[in-house]
């Protein structure tokens, strides 16, 4: 797995960048910073892909009661697992 960036500030930038909530001027600087750091670039791309898959899952479940039910059951199981700890 790609080495993870360390700082939480950097994670905040990545979140804003991936969710497209970053200010344009900051985005340009951040993009340049990403390009200069191949490890970071790969990591951000993975985060972006994961975000896209989840966004897609959410949209599918909105239009499919069967899928929504299945996902809801899984979320409930994860909740129980959390409570068991």
């Amino acid at each position: 797995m790609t080495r993870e960036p360390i700082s939480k500030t950097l994670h905040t930038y990545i979140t804003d960048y991936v969710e497209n909530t970053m200010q344009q001027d900051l985005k340009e600087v951040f993009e340049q910073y990403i390009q200069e750091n191949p490890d970071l670039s790969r990591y951000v791309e993975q985060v972006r892909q994961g975000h896209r898959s989840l966004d897609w899952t959410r949209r599918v479940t909105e239009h499919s009661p069967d899928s929504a039910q299945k996902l809801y059951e899984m979320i409930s199981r994860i909740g129980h697992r959390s409570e068991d700890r």
Partner: protein
Amino acid sequence: MSTVKKNQWQQLSDEDVMEQFQAGEEMAYNVLVQRYRNRIYHFVYRYTRNYQDSEDLTQDTLVRLYRCRLSYKRIARFSTWLYTIAGNLMKSHYKKKQRMQAVSIYGQDAEGGNQPYDPADPQPCVDDSVHATILLERVEQALHEMPEEFSSLIILRDIQQKSYEEVVDISGLPMGTVKSRINRGRARLAGMIREYEHV
């Protein structure tokens, strides 16, 4: 003229045979049918416990394979794709059966008894529906296998669309930790999905 010699078919993977089929090689379809007819039949029979329905659903799956060949994309294993088609056909078959039984309760279908198999709808292939089903299952599986400290946060944020402030309130974690775990969870998820998809 076929580019694959007769004795070479057995050496090709399912995905390679499917590629030949998509390129117009009809012999490839026969190879896939030979490889999967019995497997699909047994898969379907485990659920239907009915010989005739199983035979019909197997036949229908193989017809779908033929008709929908161009909708297969090599992001999923061929077997996963075909079993998903069979599974979807089983689901619609049961829904139709349930509807027919519901109608007969009210006497509109006096015949009752064993309803004949109703062939799957003749609509054209919906390109991404099967892949969508596969990807959805993979996302669910990846979320389930992921440590809860990641999955619970990305479900809140990405599936339930809570704001970061709400996620912080619910989880009781600092904002930086929430964002860090959500990013790491998303990256893990992408990696896990790619592992499943690797053919």
